[in-house]
Structures are given as structure tokens and as C-alpha cells.
């Protein structure tokens, strides 16, 4: 019974995603064509002769009519071809593979930290409302989120990198590790474990601590506030009162009723916050010279490489959409009411 309705929900949900994705792709396409001139002259203008630019424009198809370009573009995306950058002619898909691992590492660990800290502090703050625990927790959450991630990174580098000298402040690993590490998945942690190299693993983790914690703490701020409000709301719910009327221990009531029910909307919010998290990742990568997709994007922006920018932006948007989908499924799994 549960299985089939979950399946039906999944199909419905997937069907809804398609128009959304199409609109996203179209939006990105339009945005990139807003600038006057063509992408080639923007990227290479001043570095190459006009005739060269014209030749490249023609070869890469930027002089075709707009609707043709649009068609080619959509066709390409459907086949996994996100185009090639103009300045260094890499396939965007290979950029994603090579640099995506770094961003993945960063965001996963940051999310874990954000969720861990956020849930814990939020639960405590909600449960012990109006005590110092609550006040402190909320204040921490507010200040944490108010701190721009790059500033926290700056402070982290200053304190832990320069003044205390405990941790490295840039890059994903030290040059020595980098030279000897064999790349399998481009996710360095996995690669280091694969090779069975504890030294490399340690080095990589040391480099990961500051960026991940910085990003994580800032976003924990959001979770704290959200979890707290939901816990408070849940504790007022009718079924909580009914459970108390049956003499269920307060601790059981709080943990199994209020907390669990408060988490349901939190799961949704994790999906929504992913979008914010990715934005923060871009800033974090810039601050710590982290070689992920974010800093790559910034480079292409600086170089005015529209094709590169377009490709990466599509990836970001698609990641958010897919993540929302996954979150929705998890939600439906957890809460039996949400299955159309």
C-alpha cells in the first residue's frame, strides 16, 4: 500500500520537474544572449584580430539565427553536452567532473556541520524556551548567519592560519600531496582512501576543516532558527497534549512527538537552503582558493567567457532542482500524508 502510493507520487513529481527545467534552461539561454555583440568578441575581443574572431564565431556556431542556437543548445543539454568554454576550450562537462569533486566535498561536509550544529542548538533552544540556552542559541544563530561567509573565512584564516598557524588557509591539499595523489574520482578524500594513503588523507582533511566549518557555521544559523520555531509549534500541537493526557513521559513526548514532527518541514528546508549553500560555496571557494566549480565560475566571469558561465550556471540550477526532487521524496517517505 505504501509502496504504490510512493511510486505514484514519484512519477507525478518527476512530471512536474520537466517544465521547470525547461524554463530554467530557457532563462539561462536568454540571459546569456542579453549582452550586445556576441560571446566570442566579448571573450576574445582585443586579444585577437577581428577576422580571427569572425572565424571562431562561425565555427562555434554563434552566428546562426537565435532559434537555431536555442534548438542546438537544448539538444545538447539533453545529451549531456553543456558546451565548450571559449577561452580555454574545455568541455563544460569535463570541468564539472574535474572540479565538481572539490565543491562536492566542501558542500557535503559543510552541510553535515550545518545540520549537526543547527539541529542540536535548535532542538535545545526550542525545548528549553526562554532559558539562557534558548537566548544564547538564538543569538548564536543570528550572528552566525549575519556573518558573511567570506568574512568568517577571513577571520578563520587570520586566527587559525596566520596567528596560530595550526591550519592551512588555501587550496585543497598541499603541493606535495597533490603531486603524488592518484586521481580516480576527483573527490580527493575518496581518492586518498582508495590509495590507502593516510598521510594524504590527513593533509586533505586539514585543508578541508576551515572552509567546511566556515560555510557550515554560517548556514547552521538558518537551521537553528527554523528548527526552534518548529519545535515550539509542535509542542503546542493537539496530539502532544493528548499524549500528555495519556501520561507519556515528557521526554518521550518531546523527542518522539515534537522533535520528529518538527523535523518534517526541516527536511524541506534543507532542500531550499541548498540553493543558498551553493551560493555560499562560491564565496568560500574564492576565499580559500578552493578549486571547485564556484571559483571556476568566477574565473570565467572575469574572462567574460559566456559559454563557460552558461554551462556552469546550468549545472548549479539543475543540481538545485534535482536536490529538491530528492528532498521531496525523502519527505514523502517520512510523512505519510504527503503522497498525492
Amino acid at each position, binding site marked *: 500500500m505504501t509502496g504504490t502510493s510512493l511510486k505514484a507520487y514519484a512519477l507525478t513529481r518527476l512530471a512536474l520537474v520537466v517544465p521547470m527545467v525547461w524554463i530554467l534552461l530557457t532563462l539561462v539561454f536568454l540571459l546569456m544572449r542579453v549582452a550586445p555583440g556576441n560571446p566570442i568578441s566579448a571573450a576574445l575581443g582585443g586579444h585577437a584580430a577581428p577576422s580571427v574572431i569572425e572565424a571562431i564565431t562561425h565555427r562555434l556556431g554563434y552566428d546562426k539565427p537565435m532559434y537555431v542556437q536555442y534548438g542546438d543548445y537544448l539538444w545538447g543539454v539533453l545529451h549531456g553536452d553543456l558546451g565548450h568554454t571559449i577561452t580555454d576550450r574545455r568541455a563544460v562537462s569535463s570541468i564539472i567532473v574535474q572540479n565538481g569533486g572539490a565543491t562536492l566535498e566542501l558542500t557535503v561536509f559543510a552541510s553535515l556541520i550545518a545540520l549537526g550544529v543547527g539541529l542540536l542548538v535548535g532542538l535545545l533552544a526550542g525545548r528549553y524556551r526562554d532559558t539562557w540556552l534558548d537566548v544564547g542559541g538564538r543569538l548564536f544563530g*543570528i550572528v552566525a548567519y*549575519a556573518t558573511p561567509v567570506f568574512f568568517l573565512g*577571513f577571520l578563520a584564516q587570520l586566527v587559525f592560519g596566520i596567528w596560530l598557524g595550526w591550519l592551512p588557509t588555501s587550496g585543497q591539499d598541499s603541493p606535495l600531496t597533490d603531486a603524488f595523489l592518484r586521481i580516480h574520482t576527483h573527490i580527493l578524500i575518496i581518492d586518498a582512501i582508495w590509495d590507502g594513503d593516510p598521510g594524504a588523507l590527513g593533509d586533505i582533511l586539514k585543508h578541508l576543516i576551515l572552509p567546511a566549518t566556515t560555510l557550515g557555521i554560517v548556514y547552521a544559523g538558518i537551521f537553528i532558527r527554523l528548527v526552534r520555531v518548529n519545535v*515550539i509549534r509542535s509542542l503546542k500541537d493537539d496530539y502532544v497534549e493528548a499524549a500528555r493526557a495519556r501520561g507519556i513521559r515528557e521526554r518521550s513526548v518531546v523527542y518522539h512527538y515534537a522533535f520528529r514532527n518538527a523535523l518534517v518541514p526541516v527536511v524541506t528546508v534543507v532542500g531550499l537552503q541548498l540553493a543558498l549553500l551553493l551560493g555560499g560555496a562560491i564565496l568560500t571557494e574564492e576565499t580559500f582558493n578552493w578549486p571547485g566549480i564556484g571559483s571556476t565560475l568566477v574565473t570565467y566571469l572575469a574572462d567574460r567567457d559566456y559559454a563557460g558561465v552558461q554551462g556552469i550556471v546550468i549545472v*548549479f540550477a539543475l543540481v538545485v532542482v534535482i536536490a529538491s526532487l530528492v528532498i521531496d521524496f525523502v519527505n514523502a517517505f517520512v510523512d505519510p500524508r504527503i503522497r498525492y
Partner: protein
Amino acid sequence: MAVAARVPPRARRRGGPWLRRLWSPVGATQGLARVMLVAGFVTTLFFLVIAIFARWIAPYGYTQYEVHGVRFAELTHPSGAHLFGTTVESDDVLSRVIWGAQTELKVVVLSLVLALAVGVPLGLLSGYFGSVLDRGLVLVMDALFAFPPLLLAIVIAFLLGSTVGSGIFTAAFAITVTYVPQYFRVVRNHVISVREEPYVDAARALGARPLTVIRKYVFFNVVQNVPVIATLNAADAILTLAGLGFLGYGIQPTQGAEWGYDVQRGLSDATNGIWWTGVFPGVAIVVLVTGITLLGEGLNETINPVLRRRRFGRILFDPLGSAEALVEEQSL
């Protein structure tokens, strides 16, 4: 999100009773909510004053590197003439922080106004009239919503920068695009639920024209939500602007001081142990955003009935027979 108590609005009179009714929950705040409200308000006001009167408060201009033809020393520690020190280009950090407040104010206010001007009417119309218009707008707004906001802002700022040129307007517009979907969505959802309320139905049954219905009934109810969202958005907008500045988009150094931009410059100074060029602008961001957030949270606690706490008098039972119970006016 805050949900105001839904009351069929009485005829609106300018100021007087209308304003008082809006203000009454604020007067009833107590404890933490009030502290947050006050602290947030004072902080925000402080920065507002600095921002508006920057020209008279700041000791120097934001790109001023000399006075009377004498160049400031580079990278001096905070002291004497330069309370926050100087940058590598001999700019006074204190002045840049003060001028930065003005930049933030300009951009945030502009973007908020634009976002409200676009998002609220669209939300009202879309929610009230429904059908194809609604469906289409929702799809577009949801798509925009799916973008990481900073990413969207960066892209817009980048595009506008290459075409129209950077500046206050570019940065504001980039931020506006990021927030319109949010206002749209909140307003639309609220309109849809209010639309089904009995008193709106009654008005329609009496033959009121759609615009009248919207204006008299829907608008007021919906607008009550906006202050809380607007304050929290202002906080986000500042962070987004700082992010843009950090990456080098939005405001150019010649157009104004921007805190995010300064922190980015401070990054390279940090490796040499020079902290004041980055710390002061960064702290300014933290304090201002915290202040605005406190204001917003304080408002939220006040208006949102789920979170509101009421005061209770203490009850003392008199011995039976006198049929009176004493009470002391004390919060429980």
C-alpha cells in the same frame, strides 16, 4: 513566516485608530521579544544615521588618500588620526566604513522598493485572478527561485555590468531580481487564502469590482505580512551586496565604498598579519545585519500569534467564603 491575525478591516481612516491598531501588539511585547525589538531598532537606527550623514561624520572621503597634499601613510595601525588604520592605498578605513554604510543603504533601499513595486502587484494580480496568468507567473517565479540567489545576482550584475555599466543601480537591480520571486510568492499565497474568506466573498456577492475588493480587503491583510519579510530581506540583501562586492561586481571603487569589497582587499593583507583593513568592514556587516535581523525577529515574535507570549497575573487563592482571590500584577 509571520501570519497576521485575519480580521475584516474596518473602514480605513488616515492615521489615528488605524495606526494605533497596527501598533498595539508592539506595545504588548514583553521579555525577549521586546529586547530584540529595541536592540535591533537602535542598531539599525544607528547605522541609518551614519549612512545618511556620512558626509559630515566621516573624517575623510572614501577614496581620499591625502589631505592638504600630504599623502597618508600606508597600512598604518589603528591610532590617532586614523582610528581604524589605513589601507595599502592610504585610504582611511574608518571613513570607508562610514561611507560604506551609505552605499549599503542606497542599494538596499532601492532594491527593496523595486522588489516590492514589482513583486507585490504581481502577486496580488496573480493570486486574485488566477488562470493562465497565474500559472505562467508561478512557473517563472519558481524557476527563478530555484537559482542560488547569489548566483543569480552575480550573473545579473555581470550582465548589466558589461552592458549598462556598474553602479548603485546595477547592484540594486541584481538584488531585486533575486527577491522578487519571494515577495511574489508570499503575497500570492496570502491573497489566495484571503480570497476565499467569507467577507471577501460577501463583497463580491454585493457586486464590488475586483480592483475594489483587492484594494479594500485583500491589500490591507496582505500588507501586514510585509514588514517582517522586508526586514529579513533587507538583512539578506546586505549580505548579497557584500557578496557581490567581494567578488568585484556591483559597485566600482570610484563610485562608493563597499564593505564586501574592502574585506576582499583585506584578505591579501591578512597573510601579512594586517588585520584592520578587513576586520572593521566585516564587523560592520555583522553588526548591521544582526541588528536588522533582531528587528525582524522581534517583529515576528510580536505579530505572529503562534509565537506570541502573553502575560499572566499571579493567582493567590483567598480562603473560601470571602469569594475573592487576590492577584498581583506580575509576569509569570
